[in-house]
């Protein structure tokens, strides 16, 4: 143990109340200078609120903060920056049409004219010291999520941050970019920076942190040295109960083919070929997992299958019938259900839980009689699904946006799977969800499989793909690199295919 050094950050008895909830309930947090400190907790545990208080965005109702041993009154991010605190938010705060250098210069004092010229020189220094490479003349909209995040980190460092808060930094990144981020974080710690790493992913805690503080429902439940704890213990602390890491996957007799996709070609929003001649099939009771780094045509593929995007060439057959380029409504009627990757697409946040549950059946009996909606039918429909899918909500009339991410996803899943779908398409169904909700959603997918639904699962989470799929396809650059039965797939082979290096032998059907 090094002798007594002053902690970089000390928060004592922090209380923050929002209407109806206590987001932070007497939280104590000590972050040692130069350490990487993970702040672990489920969504809604109060991690981001606590860090927003440290960064001066919110103000605590009670409690005090010491930065480097000095009592600090942080009234705004400006105060926080002056104290050497920087924060990279989950949603980036950059001006898309401006260049990297301009974004970094934005808001800096001095340099009224051509402010970006002054920052260029130091950009090279950051690239050298921390591996933060980024082209100063590139415009933000041209950059990938990982590169944009680098710009945010550089922005914070440029302003003299030696305490850096990263709020769920991996949520938008590809596996490769995550790797690079972890390297950068370690290098920053080596250079004497203190890093606070907000996450709900256990793997990340072990990959990068020195110590971890676990939050649950606004309270600190544990502080651990990362080396002296394990995944099971942290999961239990975070969720408040034991978590299954192995889901039970019962053998299912695979039935006849439900979906057949032949040589499909689809264009992206910008009109470029995004899906370039993709063929596969899914049978009753089968989960086909599509692995791959996001942006390799998965989104366009899924949107084409649910009718939200024009198919340029090729055919889609459902139970032998051609359904290429049918309207979304027609496809819904035929039993194609879709759990979209972005929860905003599948929900209307300001409408109630009950109304969100009828989003796809609002024009059919018993919900709709003639042109009128049957309020009683809507209510009983909602009550039944809320109970069956254990959605935690104050009432069925509560606006959906007030629910946690996990409960919003349960609501979507309830709507999409309750009507005995023929084909279920799930895109990144557990992204951004905590362990408890993830476990539940995967169980629902498996039980759908047992009921004979054909399931297309698109995910970047390889653990999820391996856990659930019967066969695994890998998509790279708009093409399927190969389809392997799950028992023949291993991480290395899949990883090579994801990088576009290796192409599996054509599947023998």
């Amino acid at each position, binding site marked *: 143990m090094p002798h007594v050094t002053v902690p970089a950050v000390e928060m004592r008895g922090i209380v923050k109340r929002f209407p109806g909830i206590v987001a932070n309930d007497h939280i104590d947090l000590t972050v040692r200078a130069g350490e990487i400190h993970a702040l672990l907790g489920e969504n809604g545990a109060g991690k981001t609120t606590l860090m927003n208080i440290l960064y001066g965005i*919110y103000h605590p109702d009670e409690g005090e903060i010491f930065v480097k041993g000095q009592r600090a*009154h942080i009234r705004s991010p400006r105060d926080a920056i002056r104290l050497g605190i920087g924060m990279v938010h989950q949603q980036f705060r950059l001006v898309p049409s401006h260049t990297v250098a301009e974004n970094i210069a934005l808001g800096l004092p001095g340099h009224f004219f051509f402010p970006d010229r002054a920052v260029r020189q130091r950009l090279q220094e950051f690239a050298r010291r921390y591996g933060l490479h980024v082209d100063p003349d590139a415009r933000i909209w041209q950059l990938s999520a990982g590169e944009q995040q680098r710009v945010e980190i550089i922005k914070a460092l440029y302003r003299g941050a030696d305490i850096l808060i990263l709020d769920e930094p991996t949520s938008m990144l590809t596996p490769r970019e995550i790797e690079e981020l972890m390297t950068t974080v370690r290098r920053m710690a080596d250079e004497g920076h203190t890093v606070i790493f907000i996450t709900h992913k256990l793997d990340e805690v072990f990959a990068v942190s020195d110590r971890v503080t676990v939050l649950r429902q606004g309270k600190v439940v544990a502080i651990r040295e990362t080396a002296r704890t394990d995944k099971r213990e942290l999961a239990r602390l975070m969720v408040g109960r034991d978590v299954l890491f192995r889901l039970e996957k019962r053998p299912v007799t695979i039935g006849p083919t439900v979906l057949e996709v032949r040589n499909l070609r689809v264009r992206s929003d910008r009109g470029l070929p995004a899906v370039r001649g993709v063929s596969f099939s899914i049978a009753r009771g089968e989960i086909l997992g599509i692995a791959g780094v996001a942006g390799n045509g998965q989104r366009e593929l899924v949107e084409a299958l649910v009718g939200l995007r024009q198919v340029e060439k090729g055919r889609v057959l459902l139970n032998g019938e051609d359904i290429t380029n049918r309207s979304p*409504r027609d496809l819904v009627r035929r039993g194609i259900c879709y759990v*979209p990757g972005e929860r905003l697409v*599948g929900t*209307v946040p300001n*409408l109630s839980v009950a109304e969100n549950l009828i989003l796809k059946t*609002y024009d059919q009996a018993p919900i709709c009689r003639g042109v*009128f909606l049957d309020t009683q039918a809507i209510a009983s429909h909602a009550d039944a699904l809320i109970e069956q899918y254990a959605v935690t909500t104050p009432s069925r009339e509560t606006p959906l946006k007030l629910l946690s991410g996990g409960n919003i996803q349960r609501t979507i899943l309830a709507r999409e799977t309750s009507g005995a779908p023929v084909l279920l398409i799930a895109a990144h169904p557990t992204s951004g969800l905590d362990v408890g909700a993830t476990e539940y959603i995967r169980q629902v997918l498996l039980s759908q499989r047992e009921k004979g639904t054909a399931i297309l699962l698109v995910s970047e989470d390889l653990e999820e793909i391996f856990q659930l799929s019967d066969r695994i396809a890998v998509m790279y650059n708009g093409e399927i690199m190969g389809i392997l039965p799950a028992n023949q797939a291993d991480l290395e082979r899949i990883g090579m295919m994801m990088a576009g290096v290796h192409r599996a032998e054509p599947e023998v059907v």
Partner: protein
Amino acid sequence: MNTWPRIRLEKRSDTPHWLSRVTPGLSVLAALLVIAVIFGLLGVNPWIAYARILTGAFGSLYGLSETVTKAIPLMLAGTGLAVAFRARVYNIGAEGQLLIGAICATGVALFIPGIPDELRLPAMFLAGALGGAVWALVPAVLKARLRIDEVLTSLMTVYIASELVNYLVYGPWKGPSEWGFPYTDKFPLAAQIPRIGMTRIHYPTLILALLAAVLAYILVQRTRWGFEIRVTGENPEAARYAGMNYLRTAILVMALSGALAGIAGVGEVAGIHYRLRYPQGISPGYGFTAIIVAWLARLNPLGVILTSLLIGGLLVGGDAIQLAMGLPSATVYLFNGMILLFVLSGDLFTRYRIRIELPERVSVLVRQEREEVR
């Protein structure tokens, strides 16, 4: 060390129900306070002015009847706009649709012979509604087909409609019996909407307006079309995902709001003036004022009944003080503008809270204490 209290906006995680209820009222109050300052600068005692507005609009039977009269077009157009804005289709052209409704009614009243007397008025209402709807479809189709912003196009159709009225009353429709004024001839008796007693309240239009507000409420809250309108307005992507037809919804709400504005135009020419006149003579901007009426009602058609009476009263009271206190004719526009500004920005406080922080001089002492303890 900062010695001034600081005021900050902080995002709310949740909006309490009561707050969104009282915000419009408080916003109007705030607007009135600012206007009071302006009155003061003009050398007018604002409290006397407000008292006159109140008594002018609501203090006498005459004032009340005028308030109701002016509320009729506001209620009709405001109801339609509330529904359209709900779908996030921003029809700014209600004024133009109102004028087209007036033109169509005039056409049926004066230039189509052979309609039985008892069918003359229904035919005029029908023609006005159709005309307003078709006029509103121009920006609707441009938006749906070519993605042209409906705010601009619907606004521009107002000026076209206005010039069309001018062309007609100065040109082909100019009434031979009107001594050279830019008026059409007076409508025959069968084309005049009956009024209540000596007032100018053309009650059949009022009944239509009340009916429209109630039906629009039922449409939005209780029908599948209303569900489509609300989902489309709240999250267009979710609407697409649920298989809803955006084009159909946009055209439906545009046509509906256009039709109601058109009916308002029929009421003005056939219930008040009995002739088509130059545009400002038919409507002192009812179609624009209806935007305020709709927002003030928080886009709830039932609320529009109340807010149209309130704004109608303001128009009447505003006229009263113009005359009595020698204020410029822009006074009423000042009211309208201020109220809309405050109602729209008042929404901010349902999403954010204000925090006032007092300077903390004690903090220095606390720090010293702490260092001593060490």
